[in-house]
C-alpha cells in the first residue's frame, strides 16, 4: 500500500527550508543591529562618568547621530521579512529593538527632558509606527519595555549626577519618573514580561526619590 506521506512531507520540507533561509538572513541583520546598539550603549555609558554628566547633551547628540546606522539596518531587515509575517520572526529582533528603544528614549530625555513617543521612535528607526498586517512596524510592547529600561538607567544617572555635583537633574528625573509611573498605571497589563519589568519601576523611583531627599535635606539644590 502506498501513502501520500512522503510527497506531503517533502513539500513541507521545501517550505521549511525556505523559512530557514529567511531566518539565517534575518539573523545576520539582527547581529548588525546588535553591534550598533552596543556601540551606542557604550557611548551613552560615558554620561555616567564625572565629566560625562556635564557633557551629557553633547554625548546624547552624538548618540542621536549614530541612529543613521540603525535606520540603515532596520531598512535592510524590513526588506527581508515577507509581507504579513512580521510576528513569525519577531523573536529575532525583539530584544535588540527593546534596547534601541531604550537608547532612543534615553537620548531624548537627556536632550529635551521629555518622553519620546512611540511614533517618534518609529521615525528614528525608519519603521512604521502603527501595527498593520503588511508593514515592518515598532511593536508597542517592545517600545514600552525600552521605556522601562530607560527608567532604570535614569535612576542610575540621578545618583551619578549628584556625584558630579549636578543637583538639578535628579529633581527633574524624579518628576519625570513619577509621571511615567502614572502613565504605566493607565495600562491594563497582563501577567507577562512587561508586567514584571513594570513591577521593577517602583524600585527605580524609590532610588531617585532617595537621591532627591538627600539633596533637599541638605538644601543643596538652588531651586526651591
Amino acid at each position, binding site marked *: 500500500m502506498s*501513502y*501520500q*506521506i512522503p510527497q506531503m512531507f517533502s513539500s513541507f520540507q521545501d517550505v521549511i527550508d525556505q523559512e530557514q533561509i529567511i531566518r539565517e538572513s534575518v539573523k545576520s541583520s539582527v547581529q548588525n543591529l546588535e553591534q550598533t546598539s552596543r556601540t551606542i550603549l557604550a557611548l551613552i555609558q560615558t554620561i555616567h562618568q564625572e565629566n560625562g554628566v556635564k557633557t551629557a547633551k553633547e554625548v546624547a547628540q552624538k548618540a542621536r547621530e549614530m541612529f543613521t546606522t540603525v535606520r540603515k539596518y532596520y531598512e535592510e531587515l524590513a526588506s527581508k521579512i515577507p509581507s504579513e509575517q512580521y510576528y513569525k520572526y519577531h523573536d529575532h529582533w525583539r530584544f535588540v529593538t527593546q534596547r534601541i528603544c531604550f537608547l532612543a528614549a534615553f537620548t531624548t530625555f537627556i536632550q529635551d527632558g521629555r518622553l519620546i513617543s512611540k511614533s517618534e521612535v518609529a521615525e528614528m528607526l525608519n519603521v512604521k509606527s502603527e501595527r498593520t498586517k503588511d508593514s515592518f512596524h515598532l511593536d508597542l510592547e517592545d517600545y514600552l519595555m525600552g521605556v522601562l529600561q530607560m527608567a532604570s538607567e535614569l535612576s542610575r544617572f540621578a545618583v551619578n549626577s549628584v556625584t558630579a555635583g549636578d543637583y538639578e537633574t535628579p529633581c527633574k528625573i524624579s518628576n519625570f519618573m513619577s509621571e511615567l509611573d502614572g*502613565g504605566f498605571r493607565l495600562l491594563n497589563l497582563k501577567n507577562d514580561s512587561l508586567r514584571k519589568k513594570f513591577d521593577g519601576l517602583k524600585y527605580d523611583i524609590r532610588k531617585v526619590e532617595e537621591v532627591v531627599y538627600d539633596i533637599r535635606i541638605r538644601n543643596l539644590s538652588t531651586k526651591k
Partner: protein
Amino acid sequence: MIVEVVIFKIATFLNVYIFNINYNLLVKHNSGESRRRQKYKSHKYKDDDIPKTPLMMSFTSYRTDLDAKHDKSERLVKLSRDITIESKRVIFLLHRTTKEDKSNLILEADKKLHSLEQSHWKNVALELHGEDIYLFLRSYTQGLQEYVEAVSFLYYLKHKDLVPLSIVKDSLTFHNVDSGAVTTKTISVEVPIIDFALGLTDLGGELMRLAINSIGVGDFTTPKEICSFLRAFYDGLMNFRATNWQMNKKLQVLRNSLSKVENACYTLKIRGSEAPKELLRDLVSSVSTTTCNTDEYDN
C-alpha cells in the same frame, strides 16, 4: 535670625516627614497593587480624570491598543478551547467505530466537524481577518492541533491515508461572509505547516488505541494496516527537519504508539492461533504496556 533658622529646620523636618509618608504610601500602594488590579481588571478609567499632558495622552492611546490586542487574543483562546473540546468529542465518537456501524458514525462526525467549522472556525477567521496571524497563533494553535487530529482521524477511517493540508485549508476557508463588521468574499484561517504537523503527530495515539480496540472485537487486519501506516508516517516525520521542542516531544509519543502497535502485531502473530479472541485483547495490552513506557503517553 535664630527664628529663621528654627523655622527652616521645622520646614525641613516636615518636608522629610511628608516625604516619608508619601514614600511609604508608594511602597504599600505597589505591594497591594496586584490584587487590586486583578479585582478591577475591567475597570476603565474615566478619561476626564487623566491629566492632559502629552505623556498621559500617549499612554491613554497605548492602553487602547494593548487592550484591543489582549481582548482579541483572549477571545481566540476561548474559541480555541471550545474547538478543542468539540474535536475531542469527535475523536471519542470515532473510536466507537470498532463496535458500532462505521458509516453512520462517520456521517455523524462529518456533520459535527462541519458545524464546528461554520460556527467556531468562522469566528476565528473573522477575528484574524486583517491581522498578522503569527501575533495570535499562540492563542489558537491548541484548538487547531486538536482539530487537525480529529480531521485526520476521520480521514484515515475513510481513506486509510494521511489527510492533505489542502483539505484542512479548504475546510477553514469561508466564502461570501457577511457578519455585519466584515463583508468579504473569502476569509480563511491560516494553517501553518508546523502546527498542522503537530496536530497530525497526535494521530498516532488515536490509531494505536484503534488498533488495540480492534483486536478486542476480533478484527486482525486493522492493526496490521495501522502498523504499516504508522511506520510510513513515522519515517516521513523523521525526515522532516523542522524540529522544535514540541515536535520532539510528540515524536517520542508517536514512537511509543508505534512500538505498542508493533508489539501487538507480534503478539497476534505468535499467540493468535492458540488463544481465544476474547483473551487476546488483554494479552496484547499487557504485552504492549510492559514493553514500552506508558508514562510518556499523555493525552
